[in-house]
């Protein structure tokens, strides 16, 4: 699948740095001054940290109440208190999906003010089998947040369980947090280069699908029909069915437009299904390892399909391997 994606080069407004910590207390010790400085500047602060760290930061910052998850924007004024960003939901942990969701959340925060400061803390529970989740997440943040005026500081343990976590962090971050200041990181590589060695990880296998169909350009209508059936069975209302049909249609269109002519759709249904779960596969290669993460320029005729699909689904994970390119979609009603 050659997924058309945004080619326009915008101004990079993201400041993305990595810091390395020796203990949970060190996480709080390194994060607190960054948060405090942002609040002195009047900038909103967002946190993606473990609950214990959130509680410790609350105490250090003399917050009187526990922090809450990001309330829905858009904000007319910067929230006075730090907000918690969404945590990964559902059985699949997809760094690219999480980066896309954070980008949407952070845009609502930056609309009210010039910038936003974000603290991200490594959480071993999300490592998966090899820690590649974090490499994918940081590469995806570099793409999704390019034009967002955010200062994102990611705090990683100096000695993580998986070596990949530390190595990925060193390659992904243009800046390093050293003695409380963000400095140039000579080891930084572009997302494409980082993911060339190790692409987005494949999600956990789901077992044989309940329905499988091959399709070509002239069978996209049948793909839409199949997805509509599954979405209705999962309890979606008419508008949600329409939106999910559109999302899968865009992914399937990429597969037939740029794939090798060997595209197929897998759908998992069953009486217990409370969400739409499907995958689109083709035998093509992936030019852009993280497609559809950046809003397309209005004048760009192409590259909108996957971006729209990402806005409509709860999970959209693209990965590739020797067999071709694959997209998993999960969507709640």
């Amino acid at each position, binding site marked *: 699948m050659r997924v058309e994606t945004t080619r326009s080069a915008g101004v990079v407004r993201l400041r993305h740095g990595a810091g390395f910590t020796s203990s949970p207390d060190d996480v709080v010790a390194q994060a607190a001054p960054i948060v405090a400085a942002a609040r002195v500047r009047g900038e909103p602060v967002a946190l993606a940290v473990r609950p214990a760290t959130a509680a410790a930061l609350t105490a250090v910052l003399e917050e009187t109440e526990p922090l809450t998850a990001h309330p829905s924007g858009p904000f007319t004024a910067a929230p006075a208190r730090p907000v918690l960003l969404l945590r990964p939901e559902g059985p699949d942990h997809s760094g690219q999906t999480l980066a896309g969701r954070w980008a949407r959340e952070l845009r609502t925060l930056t609309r009210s003010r010039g910038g936003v400061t974000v603290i991200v803390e490594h959480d071993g529970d999300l490592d998966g089998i090899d820690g590649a989740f974090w490499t994918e997440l940081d590469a995806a943040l570099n793409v999704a947040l390019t034009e967002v005026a955010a200062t994102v500081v990611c705090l990683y343990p100096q000695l993580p369980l998986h070596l990949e976590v530390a190595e990925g962090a060193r390659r992904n971050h243009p800046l390093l947090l050293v003695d409380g200041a963000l400095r140039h990181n000579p080891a930084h590589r572009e997302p494409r280069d980082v993911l060339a060695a190790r692409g987005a990880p494949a999600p956990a296998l789901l077992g044989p699908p309940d329905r499988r169909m091959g399709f070509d350009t002239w069978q*996209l209508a049948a793909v839409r029909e199949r997805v509509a059936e599954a979405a209705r069975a999962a309890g979606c209302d008419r508008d949600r069915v329409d939106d999910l049909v559109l999302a899968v249609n865009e992914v399937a269109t990429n597969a037939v437009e740029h794939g090798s002519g060997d595209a197929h759709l897998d759908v998992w249904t069953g009486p217990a299904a409370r969400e739409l779960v499907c995958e689109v596969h083709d035998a093509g290669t992936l030019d852009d390892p993280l497609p559809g993460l950046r809003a397309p320029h209005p004048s760009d*005729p192409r590259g909108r399909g996957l971006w729209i699909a990402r806005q409509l689904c709860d999970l959209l994970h693209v990965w590739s391997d020797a067999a071709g390119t694959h997209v998993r979609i999960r969507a709640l009603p």
Partner: protein
Amino acid sequence: MDQRSVAHACAIPGSDEQLWEMTAAFVTAGLSAGEQVVYFDDGTVDAVLERLVDDRVPVRRPLADGQLTVVEAAETRRALRAPVRDAATGLAGLIDGAIDAGYPGLRWTGQLSSGLDRTRGVWLGDHDAAIDTAIAGRPARVLCFYDRHRFPDDVIELLRARHRIELDAPALYDDNLLRITRTAPFRIRFAGEVDHSNRPVVLRMVAAALDEALRSHSAPATLEFDLSSLRFLDGAGAVGLVHAAEGFPESHRLALHGVRPGVQRILDRCGAPFAAQLDVTPHPAGHDGPPVAGAR
């Protein structure tokens, strides 16, 4: 079909969209003439009613008061299994009933494909002869649809030969997924779905319509596209329409009418609200489902 001399005709739609279009036109003509219209359903009535709503034909009152009567699928199949003379008697009874109820006449149409179960449509042919007898000299019109999706070609030829009159509805384009018709000199209607398979046709149609308008002295400055029956538009199709309107000369505009909510949402995501020369007006019914589900 609305000429007095034509009482019994057939039509052979090549696509479902053409079937809904022609059925709705036949029903609409009957309703506006004050006639009673009987539709023999076989899983198709929702699509016909949806098309009537798209055509801005009020159907709730006719359905409630019986001017538009839908014969349920099971009854349709039973009627088509009954002996021919029963069908003729039944039709004569329907005409009598319509006259007694004060209607000036009766229209009869529907989805008759279950009649194929019986000896490959020969019986349907006998049925046509009985219809001719039953409606001779009476205020009734019958339109038999033998659409190519449901009827085999050889049966269609047999049945077509039994009708003196065949109705057709021309289209600019029809690929079974999307049907494009011209409803007025500078008004084009899209029915069905636009995706990767037929998107180039739509964009060519926009370019051709603009070209025609620019060359004509009498053309209006706004090109009218009726999307009332467009159920799906993909992202690249939406971008194509928005970019086409943005590329119009300043003297001209593109107006999309009757846009359904799902199509509206993708147009919005693709920049339609910011295209200065594009007007989008929503579908009046909003399309929450078949219009009369509870009324039948």
